[in-house]
């Protein structure tokens, strides 16, 4: 809803990290930032899917406002002064990443996505080199029942990209979530094994958008899982054109 371009949009001017920019007023901060090479970190945002606003890594400061805003869900406005990389934000982001690493099992060295993982990249980008909060050490099931794919909940960060891509792009709505709080978990169909799903078309879009090694192709071994997202901007562009 936030991203739908409306007719008669104005162009506004504003500042990001002391640089001047102009953009359409229906663009979000993260869109403008990324277009201009400012890498605001994010895990749940993905161009082409609806805005979710849940990982909170993309929070930025707006000068004059005491609150932080998520840059994926906030539109630019005339005269806005945005700061994306203050020391405070860096510290918050490191803590959020530490929390994610502590929540489930993210031992990169034995992961099929090692070297191609967004969580791992973000930790490097944000300088998170150790985790100070205790690990939760909860063991989750791995569901290998699907012929083509596998879901390892131990690696899931609950970004909901799989849920959104399946619902919004593929139109199958195989994925959803169950439980709440720390017990939240993604599920296929009504919490049945993925291989028994009636709604899954086997398209693999969820696997490709998954930022970590939670959703992967069968038969991949450590470091072998590369993800390919080229389809997403293409599909969403074609949809918008219709």
């Amino acid at each position, binding site marked *: 809803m936030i991203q739908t371009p409306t007719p008669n949009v104005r162009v506004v001017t504003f500042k990001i990290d002391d640089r001047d920019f102009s953009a359409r007023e229906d663009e979000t901060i993260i869109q403008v930032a990324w277009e201009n090479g400012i890498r605001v970190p994010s895990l749940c945002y993905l161009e082409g899917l609806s805005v979710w606003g849940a990982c*909170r890594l993309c929070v930025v400061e707006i000068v004059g406002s005491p609150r*932080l805003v998520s840059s994926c869900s906030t539109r630019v406005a005339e005269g806005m002064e945005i700061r994306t990389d203050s020391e405070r934000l860096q510290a918050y982001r490191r803590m959020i990443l530490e929390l*994610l690493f502590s929540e489930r099992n993210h031992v990169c060295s034995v992961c099929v996505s090692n070297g191609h993982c967004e969580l791992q990249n973000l930790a490097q980008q944000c300088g998170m080199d150790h985790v100070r909060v205790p690990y939760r050490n909860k063991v989750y099931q791995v569901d290998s029942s699907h012929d083509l794919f596998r879901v390892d909940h131990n690696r899931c960060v609950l970004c909901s990209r799989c849920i959104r891509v399946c619902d919004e792009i593929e139109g199958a709505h195989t994925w959803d979530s169950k439980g709440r709080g720390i017990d939240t978990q993604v599920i296929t169909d009504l919490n049945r094994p993925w291989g028994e799903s009636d709604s899954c078309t086997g398209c693999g879009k969820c696997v490709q958008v998954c930022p970590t090694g939670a959703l992967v192709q069968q038969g991949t071994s450590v470091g072998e899982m590369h993800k390919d997202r080229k389809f997403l901007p293409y599909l969403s562009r074609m949809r918008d054109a219709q």
Partner: protein
Amino acid sequence: MHIDELNELAEQIRTQHQSCQHCVRVCMAASCQSSGADDVLKRLEDAAPEGDQVQVKSVGCMGLCSAGPLVEVRSRGDDQPIMYQHVESQDAEEIMGSLGDSVVQRLECPTSIPFFQRQQKIVLENSGIIDPEDIEDYIAADGYSALVEALTESSPAEVLNEVNLSGLRGRGGGGYPTGLKWSTVAKMPATQKYVICNADEGDPGAFMDRAVLESDPHRILEGMALAAYAVGANRGYIYVRAEYPLAIDRLKKSIRQATRKGLLGANVCDTPFSFDIEVRLGAGAFVCGEETALMQSVEGERGQPRPRPPYPAELGLWGFPTLINNVETYANIAPIVRNGGEWFASIGTERSKGTKVFALAGRIHNTGLIEVPMGVPLREIVEEIGGGVPDGRRFKAVQTGGPSGGCLPAEQMDLPVDYDSLREVGSIMGSGGMIVMDETSSMVDVARYFMEFCMTESCGKCVPCRVGTYQMHELLTKIAAGKGTSADLALLEELCEVVQMTSLCGLGQTAPNPVVSTLQYFRHEYEEKLIRDEFVDMEQQTEEMEAVS
């Protein structure tokens, strides 16, 4: 219906009521019901003499829940009613026998105590007086006159203006100016708009909204209808938690009664204004009280918040502009429209107008429901109205605002209770829960209790709240068990800030508040529980040695 007809009807009902000599009111709100008010009512009805000399009536909450079941006797000609406390069914005959000539002294509840005398009732003015299941009782108490008069004689803008003038602020916790919110929705050009009443009331220990819904449901309907008229909506939803079956039942009954009288539904009072209300049930998730999650839930989705802006006023239910207010906020609307915004603005303080209902609980003599003008000092509420801490114990702290609020120590007792003062000292008004604690309560345990609540109620959408509340709870458990170190405490404080600043919705943003405020006022209680950190001690020793040399 025109206002004259309504007034005439009200007069008729009042005359009817006056024909009886004694009116015996039995509180049938949830608290008194759970302590046996049902049987008391039945026995009183059986014991009542034939004819219309004595009327036995079930009414809503009388406030002093700790003394229930409560029964009140009002005799014609006497201006002071008699209140009876802890009434049991076998007392019925004695009460009936005493009518008109004596008082059953062993049951009498003194109404001269500050608990009754210091209150000022707007929201609860009908509570404990009218029969909540009888629309005529409400009409006799000037009910629906504000709505009928507004529909037939004022424009929506005039209604809006009164609400603006009143200075009313949202009673759901945030304290956002109600008039401003209404104006935003009114200005939206959409043809379809919605009005929602937030009756999810999930704060532990809070029961203000429940009492209003159970005791005076028509007032909420009237407030919502006035809101709908002012902002241009034609459909309303009341989102009530399923744990309130009595409130749900009474709301549904009231909606039927009001629709039958032509006060809701199509072309209310033969004007072009139409308004339907539907009751929706919440399944008990605290987060569903958050406005965007609530709307998701009404739409049949998983109750999870989404980032704001866009606010519900722009993009609400099914994408249409939506006005969402709390139960108590709506309960103030009919009196404001009836008596004028200026009247309301004359009560309370500079920036917090009107009265506030509080649910007093914890280590205090009089637990129950009170309504006081904004700006009353905390001390007056705790010591006078609440009757102080029982068993000769010492007062330690009062917790306001539930899991989003803070604990205030004795030094803050002279603070006037209003939105801004409470926020300045690290707590919040919240929806009106007030829990008093004595010297036996450990503040670390209190903080841990609220953190546990937030952890289990977190929806799990955003990382800081989902994992942060879990980690803070772990740390608090460790510290409470005497196993924490100063590094744990430092980490806890860092987590508090990150979770407050980065969480998506109010639940996460305020979850650390109980920890922050107990650390602010009772830090020593945390420190006393830490295990002595040898490394830190060594460091200190070296520093001291260096200082000496």
